[in-house]
């Protein structure tokens, strides 16, 4: 990753939800600071209620921060013109249930001031991209299954070919196939040089596609860093390969021992992000306020 421009800049962001009378109810986010660079896929990770969605909404100007500041594409969150280059997939696809797929995309296309021809072309392309079955495209969204709604949700997020895509729990409600498609799509976006900010509580998603992650717990940033670095145990080396024959394994073990390696184990890899996640949550419960940030550039 090159030292390129910062797309999202969050400084000391806090959000307190208030009740009707203005009394503080929940502190959903506490002094969050982070930067996201152009072209990276950033994952916000955390258990339910940890403040991921809140962060996204603050970035988009749907909520107003209690403290702190946000710069997104160099503009303030309240500035609507930033939306020209942003695509947003809400947590649940909050779309207009009385429209069908074409009408939905046409509507959002109009909001970007796209011409009829542009809208038509773009809609077809996106619907193919998200693999929405052609026969269901003319049905009203209220008849859609969760997975189908999710797909049309992604399509509307990409209608403007955005530079920055924010995905809130992109894979929730998708079957394993859909899950795969979604990850491919994100990688594809990355390949096109787009910046992606996604949040999820599903570790597998994040692990596969994200360059960097941050783990939130109780509205606080607990861990942040490059996925590979975070998972790299400093005093261990892991060798992975396609399945080897018995003889080959033996040979390797000998080679390693010759180089003085101890505790040599040869077996299948485990999902170690899960370990990290659980460890972080566990630690946060035991030692509130502790932070493990490997990514030295982003903390001020």
């Amino acid at each position, binding site marked *: 990753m090159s030292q390129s421009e910062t797309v999202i800049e969050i400084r000391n962001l806090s959000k307190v939800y208030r009740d009707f009378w203005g009394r503080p109810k929940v502190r959903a986010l506490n002094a969050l600071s982070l930067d996201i660079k152009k072209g990276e896929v950033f994952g916000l990770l955390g258990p339910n209620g940890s403040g991921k969605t809140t962060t996204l909404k603050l970035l*988009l100007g749907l909520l107003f921060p209690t403290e702190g500041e946000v710069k997104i594409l160099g503009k303030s969150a309240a500035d609507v013109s930033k939306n020209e280059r942003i695509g947003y997939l809400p947590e649940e696809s909050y779309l207009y249930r*009385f429209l069908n797929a074409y009408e939905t995309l046409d*509507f959002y296309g109009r909001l970007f001031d796209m011409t009829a021809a542009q809208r038509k072309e773009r809609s077809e392309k996106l619907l193919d991209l998200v693999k929405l079955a052609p026969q269901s495209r003319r049905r009203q969204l209220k008849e859609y299954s969760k997975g189908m709604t999710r797909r049309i949700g992604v399509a509307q997020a990409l209608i403007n070919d955005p530079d920055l895509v924010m995905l809130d729990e992109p894979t929730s409600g998708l079957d394993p196939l859909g899950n795969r498609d979604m990850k491919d799509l994100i990688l594809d976006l990355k390949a096109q040089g787009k910046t992606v900010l996604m949040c999820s509580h599903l570790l597998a998603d994040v692990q596969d596609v994200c360059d960097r992650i941050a783990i939130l717990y109780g509205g606080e940033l607990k861990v942040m860093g490059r996925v590979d670095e975070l998972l790299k145990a400093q005093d261990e080396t892991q060798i992975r390969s396609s399945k080897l024959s018995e003889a080959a394994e033996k040979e390797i073990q000998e080679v390693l021992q010759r180089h003085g390696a101890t505790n040599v184990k040869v077996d299948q890899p485990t999902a170690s992000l899960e370990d990290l996640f659980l460890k972080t949550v566990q630690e946060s419960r035991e030692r509130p306020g502790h932070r493990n940030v490997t990514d030295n550039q982003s903390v001020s």
Partner: protein
Amino acid sequence: MYFDPNEYLLNPIISVLNWVVVVGCLTFVVLFVSMVNLIATRGASGVGVFFDELGGMVTDLFQLSPRRIWALTRLTYTEAIRRKALAVFVVFGLLFMFAGWFMGDTKEIKPDQVKVYISFVLTTISWLTLPVVLILCCFGIPEDIRLRSIHTVVTKPARRVEIVLGRMIGIWLIGCLVLAVMAIVGHFWIVRQIPAESQSLLTCRVPVYGTRIDFVDREGNAAKSGVNVGDIWVFRSYIEGATKARAQWTFRNVGESLLDSDGNLNFENSFSAFRSYKGDMTRPLFYDIRLINPEKNLAYTTDPQPVNEFRHKLDTIPRKVTIDGTQYDILKDFVTDRKELHVEVSCIDREQYIGMARSDLFIRMPDRQFWMGYWKAILGIALTLLLITMIGVSASTMVKGPIAAVLTFVIYFLSLKDNHQFMDQLVFGQVQGGGFLESVYRLVMHMGPSQELPANPAFVVVKFFDWVLNNFLWLCRHVIPYSQYFNMPEFVSNGFDVPWDTSILPSLLVTSAFIIPCVLMGYFALRIRELESK
């Protein structure tokens, strides 16, 4: 028959000034309250946020896109249709199927029966379109927020003011669609309901009213009004027969255009008769009309004409009249240099009285087609719907749907003629029995409105509270539209054309006066709120 058209025009300068003051005050109050609110929630940085927001708002206003507004309009429209707003036609259909129930006899059609038909149609239409529009405009945005579908819109380049505008236009279009369909059906219904031989009762008369009426008493002295014959209703004032008593009208700008195609001047009246004794009941009371030109000392008197009470009576005066063998031309010889025509009416029968008001005598110009007036009345309803839409949408950006609906309905209700007048009376202290608390006290204690309150210092507090409320009412009175201007249906059901100057123009002005404040208020409210339902 009774009909009292508006007497006054909106004075353009005063109205605009008034508008500026009211809108200015409102803007100030709104801005002030939100600034205080921001400071309260965000401390000192609130001030910065406030001015940033203000700047953002202003720049947004210059970046409106018709295509986006149209997209939101279409969305609103589609939503309404797909959510079955058009089910109102079922109610409409039912009402018209059973309209006979409310009408009584349909066999005998009298002129004022026609009036009942027309006002039935127009009232039904306005009371059916009203709830449709009210519900759509008050529940649209809150529902959008509750379902969070608005999140996908505001995270697009759509400005929040565009959302407000799109909603307003979309709902108004729906309202107009419903209105148009109902109006067409209603039109056919009226025409079908009235038998072929009575079709001529569907009139669209074009009256030119006198600008003033003056009275002369029985001794020949100028009087403020005629005689009151003991009616509760003081609309008409009576002149005594066979005395010098008479009523004098002044018509302005009299020229060729007021004459009919044959060059005659047509006066129509709806005088009422009052007998101090019955006498020969088979003989009607008589009046005559005199045209006078005080400058030339010229007068022309018609033959005695019978009073045709509660109906229209048409008196035609030929352009060329003969007085003592000399021929005169009405326009040339009777219209003064200031283009005024003076007309006097007196009663002929001794000890009998004829009652009249300013609008009881007018020059009747050639009639228009009935449908012209009818559709102008529909325009009046459309403007009312627009007004309600604007108020409703902007209310719904601040409060939840049901509250917005109640609020909007109350505003509409208060804007109705009688209620607005009552509000005026309250504000100007013309209502007996005191303000809110005092009236409640009187009600509970069974005290009449004119009874003295007991000497108790508590009433100082009560009166002060009422005074505060009354001042609030004063503010409301200025903000709440006066729907008297939107009374086009009243003209049409009375068989008149809708006048441009005293009805259409003022209602257009009132409506447009609401556009800017409503849109801005809705925009502002939508912008300063977090789009989470509470």
